């Protein structure tokens, strides 16, 4: 959405700071404010700066761009701002202001590479990896051209977390799901989050056409970023689609509840769950993953102190991992320290991007965890499909 569309609400932010906290005010939960500490780096500070930019009371500068970009779009502010008339728009406003930064020539250099790589016909992904049309995977897993579901792999799983991708493919196969893959291009989440929106509509239309060609009416994704984009941003962009989007954790939970699959072996580990912001606070998807973990035989599932709406972000989102790589890892370190208190051996998440950042921090700070996606944990147990 264009920043002007928020003109009537942006000045309604009071700069009161509820958005800085967890629900019970136990601590600051906006990673950006927690790091930089200046009021300008709080959500309210951002709202006031954006409003001042719109009114020309202040000017674009590298610092202003830095303030706007040093936010992992975690959504804690949407969750904890008390003003219900506008709290749902806070992250949208930050993203719309980033689009203005791009127009005004203030997109930071590192974030620019996301766009450069994504629109490059050799890649179509923000990692700058040669684009794969997924035909070899279709062959390997014997997938049809037409199916009920499309598994939208997402760039992070396909180019960085292939174990997770393969585990998802195996899981869908063993659950007896009729699915296929498409020659996908980036879902555009990194572009929307960083305000580089010019090619977004074209990419969305491309992906929708590929999905429609398969005859599928449902899409499954194992990535929180893709999931939020397909569920929310496609609609905001007015993309015509008659397609239901489910996150893997939702699908697995449905299958469990309908008795279509059962978990038939144990995993005797202490596991804690990190809520990815883009399916957690952004989509309210908190219970499905937990229900799946709690169905795994032998698991000792323990919660961290900050969970669900109060979850501490992993620090990767919103272009922060590419823009501020060291800080992104500091944010994850904080999460790993929170996890340590539970006594967990495994930190599990439901997003390849969280998994990447948590793993990187786990290695860098020698925290000694095993970091696994939910699907990778399921890959370690025996799953039986039942015809119902």
């Amino acid at each position, binding site marked *: 959405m264009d920043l002007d569309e928020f003109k009537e609400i942006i*000045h*309604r*932010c*009071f*700069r*009161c*700071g*509820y958005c*800085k*906290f*967890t629900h*019970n*005010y*136990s*601590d600051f939960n906006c990673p950006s404010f927690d790091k*930089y*500490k*200046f*009021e*300008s780096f709080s959500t309210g*500070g951002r709202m*006031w*700066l954006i409003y*001042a930019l719109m009114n020309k*009371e*202040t*000017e674009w*500068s590298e*610092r*202003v761009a830095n*303030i706007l970009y040093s936010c992992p779009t975690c959504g804690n502010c949407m969750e904890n701002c*008390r*003003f219900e*008339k506008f709290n749902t728009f806070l992250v949208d406003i930050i993203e719309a202001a980033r689009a203005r930064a791009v127009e005004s020539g203030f997109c930071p250099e590192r974030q620019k590479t996301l766009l450069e790589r994504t629109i490059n016909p050799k890649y179509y992904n923000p990692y700058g990896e040669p684009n794969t049309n997924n035909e070899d995977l279709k062959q390997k897993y014997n997938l049809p051209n037409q199916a009920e579901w499309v598994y939208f792999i997402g760039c992070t799983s396909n180019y960085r977390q292939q174990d997770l991708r393969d585990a998802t493919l195996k899981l869908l196969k063993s659950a007896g799901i009729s699915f296929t893959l498409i020659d996908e291009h980036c879902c555009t989440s990194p572009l929307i989050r960083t305000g580089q929106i010019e090619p977004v509509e074209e990419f969305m239309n491309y992906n929708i056409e590929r999905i429609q060609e398969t005859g599928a009416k449902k899409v499954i994704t194992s990535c929180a970023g893709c999931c939020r984009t397909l569920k929310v941003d496609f609609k905001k962009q007015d993309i015509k689609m008659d397609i239901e989007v489910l996150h893997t954790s939702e699908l697995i939970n449905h299958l469990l509840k309908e008795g279509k699959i059962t978990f038939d072996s144990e995993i005797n580990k202490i596991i804690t769950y990190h809520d990815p912001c883009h399916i957690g606070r952004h989509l309210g998807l908190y219970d499905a993953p937990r229900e799946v973990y709690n169905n795994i035989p032998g698991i000792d599932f323990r919660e961290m102190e900050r969970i669900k709406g109060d979850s501490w972000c992993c620090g990767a989102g919103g272009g922060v991992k590419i823009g501020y790589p060291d800080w992104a890892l500091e944010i994850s370190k904080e999460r790993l320290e929170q996890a340590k208190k539970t006594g967990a051996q495994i930190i599990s998440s439901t997003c390849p991007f969280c998994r990447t950042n948590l793993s990187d921090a786990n290695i860098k700070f020698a925290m000694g965890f095993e970091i696994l996606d939910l699907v990778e944990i399921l890959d370690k147990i025996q799953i039986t499909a039942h015809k119902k």
Partner: protein
Amino acid sequence: MNKEKILSELQKIVGNAFVSNDPAELYIYSIDPGASKPRSVNFVVMPASTEEVQAIVKLANEYKIPIVPMGGGLTLSGLTLPVKGGIVMDMKRMNKIVEINKLSRYALLEAGVTTGRLQAYLDKNYPELQVSVPDAPPSVTVAGNALINGSGFLTHQHGDHGAMINGLEIVLPNGELCKLGSCGLSDYWFSRGPIPDLIGLYTSSFGIMGIVTKLSIKLYPKPKMRDLVFGLFKKTDIIPNLLYKVTSTDLVEDILLGIQGKPDWMADYIFIISYITGNTQDELDKKEKKLKKMYRKNGARFMKAPPRLRDAFLEKPQFAANAADFRKGGGFEYVGSFFPLEKVPEAIEEGVKISEKYGIVPTLGARIFGATHTVMVFFTYAFNRADPDDIQNARDALKETNEITLKLGGIPWKGELEAQKMILEKIDPQYKNLLKTIKNHLDPNGIMNPGNWEVN
């Protein structure tokens, strides 16, 4: 002013990341959510320790540059906007809860600890203890609030929050360190006296006497249950007697009055909320019964509070910031005035008239301090931040309210510059002289928040 030199000196003290003179920070720190006009700032600095505060104060003396200490910056009266430029010292990095003394019931805190965090910390670790928090957003600081004689849900029982200070660690305007209260001679921050009480110099003086780096604040036992007894009446003249009667007993924890033009059904009424606490439902029921009777006998009628209202008023802190959206515009400011009980009816009537005159839905209230030793009446004026005329309208209403307050024998609380001037005009000249003498002696270079309480 040698800005480059000052910047590099400040960077040496706190590190590059925690000092800024970038227009983005200077803009944000030059405005607050109240109705004050922006005032310019030269630097924002965030010290992490008392030693860093001392070094900054010494630097400010060297360069004769003003310092304005800031907690949450949420008084709404522009008290953290520099009057004469200079350094805003944002205290939030000094955020340690140093000690909770359970037996002597106090919390020793660094100046940047927020009310929200202290409250959550006690709830988790000391559920039998509580601190009196204001109904300000949880991002305000315990220090900033106590230092302006703030008030909260335990103020009726235990006085304003300034009175709850046991001790202070202060960086004096010359950079020296000073401890006031029992901490000046004991390891325990348990008491304000019995020694000459200099802590009062630091309350409601808005940072002109030095910078508080630590404070000890009183904690209180926390009953297991809390509820409210809601009542309504129409005529202001019953207020003194009603409050006098209710406070003659030890039935209530806190008492609030409210006048709200919206929703429509409330417009004709004044409401009273008495908070009751106890450890059993039976205890609460008995208190409720007595209060109902007391309301009836003294001209008010009990009403079962609608659930949403009840929840809203039981929240700690209450979501008073809600008023900022009354005009869909992210702004409000209020005059909170301290009155003797007998003047409350007139104050409320005048407040309603002012609201009506300025076309603002009347939103007034009152909180009782002590056994009616003081009643703080608040007159809230919402405005739309996007509309300069609307902001000016609120400013005019605030000014008129300050004038009426003083005329009625009350005192505006946490007064913005204009209110401070009005108070100084009216105050005993010897009070002014004494203030000036102390201030000049403590701060010969005039670096501490100059322009506030300025006696010429």
